[in-house]
Each structure stands twice: as C-alpha cells, then as structure tokens.
C-alpha cells in the first residue's frame, strides 16, 4: 500500500477555460450553473458544406481580448503573428497566471502543452505563405508560448488523442511529486477545423444535433474548440489555500482496436482501479466522476461497463460534452477545471443532454444540478488508439 503521509501534496492553485461559454473559469462555470450549452448550429462553408452543431469560441472576442493582452504585456509582435490556437492558448495561460504569483523564468517550472492537432488549419490553402511552414509542428506552438511568457525550460508536449489533457495532468503531477519540478503550467487546446470535422464525419461519428451523452437517443459527438489551463504546484507556499490536490492517476491501453473502444470496459476499469490505489482511496470514498461521455453509442456503453467493473455505479457521474462539445486535446483539462470548481463549490452539474437511461450497465447520471458535498472525485478519458486515463482529486 502507498505511504501517502510521506508523499508530496500537489495543489491545483489556478485555472482558466477559454470556450464558447466564456474566457475565464468563472464565466464558464456560471454558464454551467445556469445550464447553458455552448453548442450551436453553425453554417460555415469553409468548415463543412452543411450546418453542423459545434461549440466555437467567439472570434471577435478572441481578437479583442488578445490585443488587450498584447498591449498589457507590451509585446512587439503584431496580433496576426499568432495563429487562432496560439491566441487562445496565450489568453488561457495569461488568465491563469493572474491568480498566482509565479516567476515565469523559474527553472523549477515546467510548461506542458496538450493538443491533438495543434495548428492543423495551417495546412489549408488559405494559409499558404501566411505563417512559417514550421508552425504546423506541435513543438513550434509550444515554443511560441514559451517565448511569449519567458519560460526557462523546454516545454513538454503530450499528444495522445482525446486523453492528452488528462495524461498531461497525470504527467505533471508525477514530475512534481518526484521533485523534478515544483510548478507545472498544464495547458490544453484544439481548434475546430475542416480537417477534424471531415474526419469525424467519415467515421459517421457526428450527431446532427447537440450531443446527448449516456442518453438512449445518443447518436454521436459534437465537436468543440477551446483551451484549458491548470496550474499545479508542490510549493508549500500554497498549502494554506482552500484548494484541491491531485492524488494519483493511471494510463492503460485496450489493446483491442485503434478506433473502436473495448467492448468490455476492462482496461478503463483497470485505470480507474489503479488511480484509486495510487491515491490511497477506497472506491466508496469517491463522490463524483467526470466521465469522458462523448455520446457515441460505443464509448458511453464502454464507460458504463467500466464504471460497474470498478464498483462505482452508485457514484454520481456526468459528461461535460453536452456543454462544451468534445474539445479533444483541451477536453481533459477544461473538464478537470470544471471538476475542481465542482469540488470548491460543492455542486454536482447536470449531465447536459441526458434525458433517458441509455447504456447497458446502470450508472448514476446526474440529472439536475444540485448542491452536494464533493470532496473526492475522479476524471476519466479514453481515446483513439485504445488509450484510457483516470485521475483522482481530493479537497485539501
């Protein structure tokens, strides 16, 4: 058994969300409380030849806010030096940094970027010659952030399909716990693009209306874009704050199929069990699960099986995909920020889009947003390539 007493505490001390629902964690959480969804029908031919439900960041607001940050930080590069994704990422990190007092060039600090496709829109004809061709590389995006903020260490980039965000947080917590670094800025982002829309379309994976995770009538996912940032530290300077600890996490692989999830949910269940074991917690102590819940027939089915295999079927569970859509590389982080808010405010958010039981194994889907003590929770994610992740948080 793990000796928790001797292990370092990893505190989540600041965060941000940039999405269709707002440009700060506060704005986004307020939207969750009022039950607002960011998924709207968009009709943009550049993205797809038919109207499609998408969760998109307001371009106008993005540009205005970004220019303001450039001004405040007295940056000499013009706004159009930066790509859409980079603007979102910079705004997200900037906002999260406003709540903590960090030395940006601290050698004990690591910046971790989570993204699936990065600046993939730069492959389009309309961007030919606009940006240096190297900007499509994920490390180039991370470098833009590093240079902007003046971080010392080379960034770490995690690109592991839809589990990237949770994996980035797990990696950060491990590096902090081992003492390699004392602070980690973990940021995830992905944009909506023709590339990704057409791809998911070819998989028949997109729902014609806003997605309905775990629901009987679910018929696919809704894509979203955005950024999430979570700042983690082991520095005792923050130990007095009322905050949330990252306890432990695990990563597994289905070893079954590159795009379809395991039919048994065994490997996701293994990740959940291992995360609990590492956290020194019993199954019965978990108050809430923020599941992956993409609203595809097979994913949600698999998750219901995994939750039951791990004996967590009574635990209130939701998916945030009905609010933000599936934000891919940002999902794990945006949804973890929501989970942290859930814990701080003792609120369980309704699983948006859910009306009727629709998965083979019974799970306890949150139907209405309610006040409830939330002290220990779990975040899960699964993705293409058969990967699964589970992460446990506990209130200090």
């Amino acid at each position, binding site marked *: 058994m*793990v000796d928790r007493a001797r292990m370092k505490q990893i505190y989540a001390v600041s965060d941000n969300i940039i999405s269709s629902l707002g440009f700060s964690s506060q704005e986004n959480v307020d939207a969750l409380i009022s039950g607002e969804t960011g998924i709207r029908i968009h009709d943009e031919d550049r993205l797809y*030849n038919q109207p499609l439900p998408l969760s998109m960041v307001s371009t106008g607001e993005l540009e205005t806010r970004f220019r303001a940050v450039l001004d405040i930080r007295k940056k000499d590069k013009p706004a159009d030096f930066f790509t859409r994704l980079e603007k979102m990422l910079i705004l997200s990190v900037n906002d999260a940094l406003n709540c903590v007092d960090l030395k940006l060039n601290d050698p004990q600090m690591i910046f971790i970027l989570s993204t*699936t*496709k*990065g600046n*993939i829109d730069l*492959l*389009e*004809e309309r961007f030919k010659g606009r940006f240096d061709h190297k900007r*499509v*590389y*994920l*490390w*180039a995006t991370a*470098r833009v952030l590093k240079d902007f903020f003046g971080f010392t260490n*080379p960034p*770490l*980039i*995690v*690109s*592991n*399909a839809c589990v990237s965000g949770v*994996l980035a947080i797990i*990696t950060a917590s*491990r*590096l902090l716990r*081992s003492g*390699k670094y004392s602070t980690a800025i973990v940021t995830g982002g992905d944009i909506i693009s*023709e*590339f990704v829309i*057409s*791809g*998911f*379309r*070819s*998989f028949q994976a997109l729902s014609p209306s806003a997605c309905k995770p775990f629901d009987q009538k679910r018929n696919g996912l809704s894509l979203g874009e955005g950024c999430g940032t979570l700042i983690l530290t082991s520095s005792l300077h923050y130990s007095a704050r009322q905050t949330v600890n990252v306890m432990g996490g*695990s*990563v*597994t*692989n*289905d*070893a*079954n*199929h*590159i*795009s379809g999830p395991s039919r048994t949910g065994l*490997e996701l269940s*293994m990740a959940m069990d*291992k995360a609990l074991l*590492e956290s020194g917690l019993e199954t019965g102590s978990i108050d809430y699960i923020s599941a992956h819940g993409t609203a595809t027939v097979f994913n949600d089915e698999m998750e219901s099986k995994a939750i039951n295999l791990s004996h967590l079927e009574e635990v209130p569970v939701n998916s945030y995909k009905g609010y933000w859509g599936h934000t891919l590389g940002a999902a794990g982080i945006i949804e973890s920020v929501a989970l942290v808010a859930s814990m701080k405010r003792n609120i369980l958010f309704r699983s948006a889009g859910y009306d009727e039981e629709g998965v083979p194994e019974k799970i306890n889907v949150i139907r209405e947003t309610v006040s409830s003590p939330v002290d220990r929770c779990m975040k899960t994610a699964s*993705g*293409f*390539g*058969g*990967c699964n992740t589970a992460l446990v948080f506990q209130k200090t």
Partner: protein
Amino acid sequence: MNKLISSFVYIGEGKVFVNKRLIFYQEKIVTFAEFIKALYRQEQVSYPKFHKMDSLSKLGFMAAELLLKSSNRGRYQADSLAIVLANSSSSLDTDMIYQESIRDRLVYFPSPSVFVYTLANIVIGEICIRHGFKGENAFLVSEKFDSGQLMDHVSEVFDMHRAEACIFGWVEILGSQFKAMMALVEYENAVLAENHGFRPVPFSQAAINDLMNVN
C-alpha cells in the same frame, strides 16, 4: 533496484540494427514504402493489418517487432509493460496525405482509414494490439530527440510499481526522411547477462543518447 537497457533497435539511413548488429540494409535508394515492406518480408512477419497502417505505424510496428523478437518479454503481465514513444512531426506525414483528400470540394472523399492515423499515438495502439500490452502508454512530441524528457517520463512510469518494464523510443517519419530507435528497459534481476551479443547497459541519459548513435 537498477534498471538496464536490455535490447534496442535502430532504423535509419537505410539500415536496421538490432542490438548493434546490422540485420537489414537497402543498397539502392528506395521509397520508405518499399523499404519497410522489404523488411517486413525479410522478417517473415504475418500480420495482414500491417498493410493498412500509415508510414509512422509501419515504422513503429516493425521496430517493436524486431525489439520484442530478441527479448524475454513473455515473462511480463499484459499491464506491466509500458510504452513511451516520441517524435518531432507527430502525424504530419499522414496529415498532409489526409489534407490532400479534402483539398478539392469537387473530389471530396475523406477516408476514415487515413484519418484514424492522423493521431501519432495510433502507432502505440497498433503495437499494443499486436502484443497485447495494456499498461502505461504515452506519446510525446519534441523538436529534436530529447533523451532527458524520455528519461524523466520512463522513470515516472517505473515509479510506484506502475510498470515492470518499459519500451521507449523515437519514431519519426516525414516523406522520405525516417528514423526510429526503440529500446526495452527492465529491472536488472529480469535481464539475461548477455542478449545475443549485446551487453545490457544501465539506464541513463547518456546511454539513451548512445542508442541514437549506433550507425
């Protein structure tokens, strides 16, 4: 307990080394597709799914195939062998192929079998499926090969008994430029004294750097 690099594979400059022994060499200039198919046939691999993979997955798959042939990994449980891979271009090679398929709205046939490979971690998925690996896994990206980052990540994967052994490496391809290095790290009590003429070396950043310099 100490960890050792017990075997490794290097593929680059038209050559393939297993534990420092040259086992394959293309004298004439061939495309990557021809190179990897010739390697697949020489090694007498029988895995029809191979032909559906993109270049990145074929490269990683063959490196793992060679690595595991020469190792004693049968002793490990499905969930105790981890895999950590990295590269510089992620899935850009396939991304460009996919982008081309959606460039023209009049000839617009996005292929799901190409799209699925526009995620670099799929190479890990293919290796896990082939060998039944269910443990820790991660795909990282860095501008250049970064032995420090790999070392850190692999060390974390061994911590707290998350894994008993770990495959780590670099699998990079863009067009005709390709390079792969894949190695197996195990606890010293699991390792044979010598592995087909290769002396296992202590797992360190310097040792990792050496693996990339075998040619």
